[in-house]
């Protein structure tokens, strides 16, 4: 197993480096840099700017810059954010936590709803409810996330039931711990719904497909032939088998989450890594951008790695490939 993990790491780490390099190159290729706007400002002397540029190696070529950046990363120094004027790591920490909360919420929401829904639809195949959920599933997969988010936010602002975006209410600090928690939950609802809907749609389909396949298996007929009640046949015998392939999906869905979350974060004003990325790009905040991209890719790869490990644990044959 350790062997397998090492092999996977050897595969993922170069990938991580490649991705970070590409990102670095991209933002570097952007015409100008953060200091352009400062250069216009007569209060800031050209010398000071030049000093900054030298300090961050902005006057040297891409490869040198990247090299220095890597060296710093290995010391866990993500650099300095020009826009926020604090070390990048500090900015990342809080944002990462926020994205993590949102991802966790979506994960729980989508899996807790999709799995039972998939089972239900498989057991009631061809009935009206199955067709209805199939239809909703299709809508859920097709609706653009930003459109759905905007619609929900519109209704939220119209009715005032839910907060229209953001992560904390204005008087957040005044709440008791329970109040803070509830406030957080209220703000989580819309982004979770938006991201979760397409997630649920996809997962439910998969689960339904797995269940349908399993229900056709011989051992299910055997279970019935033993005189077991139908609920036991389905939940104990069928579901237990249908769930297995879903384990592998788990890691992959992390990737989808991270990707889909960024746009929704921005629209719902959720202060996470995705929103940060946009800000960094807009202000050409070099180290923030590179650090954010690295963090995202790292989380992604972590997800894939965990998925691979769990799969290998469940199915020993995989390790020997």
């Amino acid at each position: 197993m350790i062997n397998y993990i090492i092999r996977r790491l050897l595969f993922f780490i170069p990938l991580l480096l490649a991705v970070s390099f590409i990102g670095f190159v991209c933002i570097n290729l952007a015409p100008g840099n953060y200091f352009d706007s400062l250069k216009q400002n007569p209060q800031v002397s050209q010398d000071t700017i030049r000093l900054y540029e030298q300090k961050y190696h902005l006057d040297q070529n891409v490869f040198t810059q990247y090299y220095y950046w890597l060296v710093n990363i290995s010391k866990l120094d993500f650099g300095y954010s020009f826009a926020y004027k604090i070390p990048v790591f500090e900015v990342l920490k809080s944002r990462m936590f926020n994205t993590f909360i949102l991802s966790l919420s979506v994960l729980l929401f989508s899996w807790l709803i999709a799995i039972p829904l998939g089972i239900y639809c498989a057991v009631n195949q061809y009935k009206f409810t199955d067709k209805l959920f199939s239809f909703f599933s299709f809508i859920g997969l097709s609706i653009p996330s930003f459109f759905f988010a905007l619609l929900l936010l519109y209704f939220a602002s119209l009715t005032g039931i839910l907060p229209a975006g953001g992560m904390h209410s204005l008087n957040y600090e005044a709440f008791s711990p329970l109040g803070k928690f509830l406030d957080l939950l209220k703000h989580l609802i819309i982004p979770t719904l938006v991201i979760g809907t397409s997630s649920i749609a996809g997962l439910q389909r998969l689960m339904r497909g797995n269940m349908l396949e399993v229900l056709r298996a011989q051992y299910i007929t055997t279970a019935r032939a033993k005189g077991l009640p139908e609920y036991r046949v389905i939940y104990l015998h069928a579901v237990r088998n249908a769930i297995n392939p879903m384990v592998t999906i788990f890691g992959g869905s992390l990737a989808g989450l991270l990707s889909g979350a960024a746009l929704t974060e921005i629209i719902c004003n959720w202060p996470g890594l995705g929103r940060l990325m946009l800000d960094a790009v807009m202000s050409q905040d070099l180290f923030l951008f590179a650090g954010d991209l690295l963090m995202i890719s790292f989380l992604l790869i972590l997800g894939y790695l965990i998925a691979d490990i769990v799969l290998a644990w469940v199915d020993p044959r995989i390790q020997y490939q």
Partner: protein
Amino acid sequence: MIPRWISAENFNMDNILEIKDLHTYFYGEDLMTKAVEGVNLPVRKGEALGLVGESACGKTVTAYSIMRLIQSPGKIIKGQIIFQGKDLLKLSAREIQAIRGKEISLVFQEPLAALNPVYTIGFQIGEGIRFHDREVSNKNQKEKVLELLKAVGIPEPESRINDYPHNLSGGQAQRAVIAMALSCNPQVLIADEPTTSLDVTVQAQIMELFLKLRREKGFTFILITHNLALCSQVVDRVAIMYAGKIVELATTEEIFNHPLHPYTKALFASIPKGIAGKEKLETIGGQVPDPANKPSGCYFHPRCRLKKENCLQAYPEYREIKPGHWVSCHYAI
């Protein structure tokens, strides 16, 4: 006032199970398949009955119909299956669940497919016991399972009880399935081609096992197979099925010595008897009819040597030509 589940006619005390005019059809996208078309089969208490026929003749569907395991797109259209005075086809879901596994059990063709890959065989064998008799404690159940494993001839039952199906060979898995089927001491055991997917040597062992268990427990045995030779050793009576209908029914001795239906005769003729290479293999020309598209009149007529005019027009009546010997042919003598 006769309760709804007792059929008034032909209530024969000697028959533990009686299939009357069973019709089970399958509905596909464009076509309807009449898998079982008017099967009448009385099964006497304690006997061993062989149900013989080629693939797709409806024997498995008949077995599944008895247990009411037919799922969409299949449907039992009409008929009665009388067991212990009740019509199984009219029972509620709860009632039929009480019968399955406890009174009537089924052994399947492919043992490894019939076992759930994620549970141990001990669990699967014991499951039925628990469900049919709530009084059974954990300890009792385990003891019973071990007893059963011994009875079916699985060596070292204490360690095997925690094995998963994929740890077992085909033969051992089939023994486990048999143990599972007998776990609640059913009155009737139906075995659907139990040895077809096993090696030849193992086949013999499993048939031996069936005989032994029958002697010990005395259940009624219905053996479904396409192998006529197998029947001669094991069963008391044989029913020959063709294209969804029973074409001949008689004691083993009668069938072997005086087969009446042309199909039965052809089946006997095609059993390889002689020394390899010295005798020509007899085959029955033609193919089994497509269940969705059966021939007119007698279903066997395209392949029959005795075919005459009215064989194409009318399906021959199923009648008792000799006492206890039923045939469905216009020209059976």
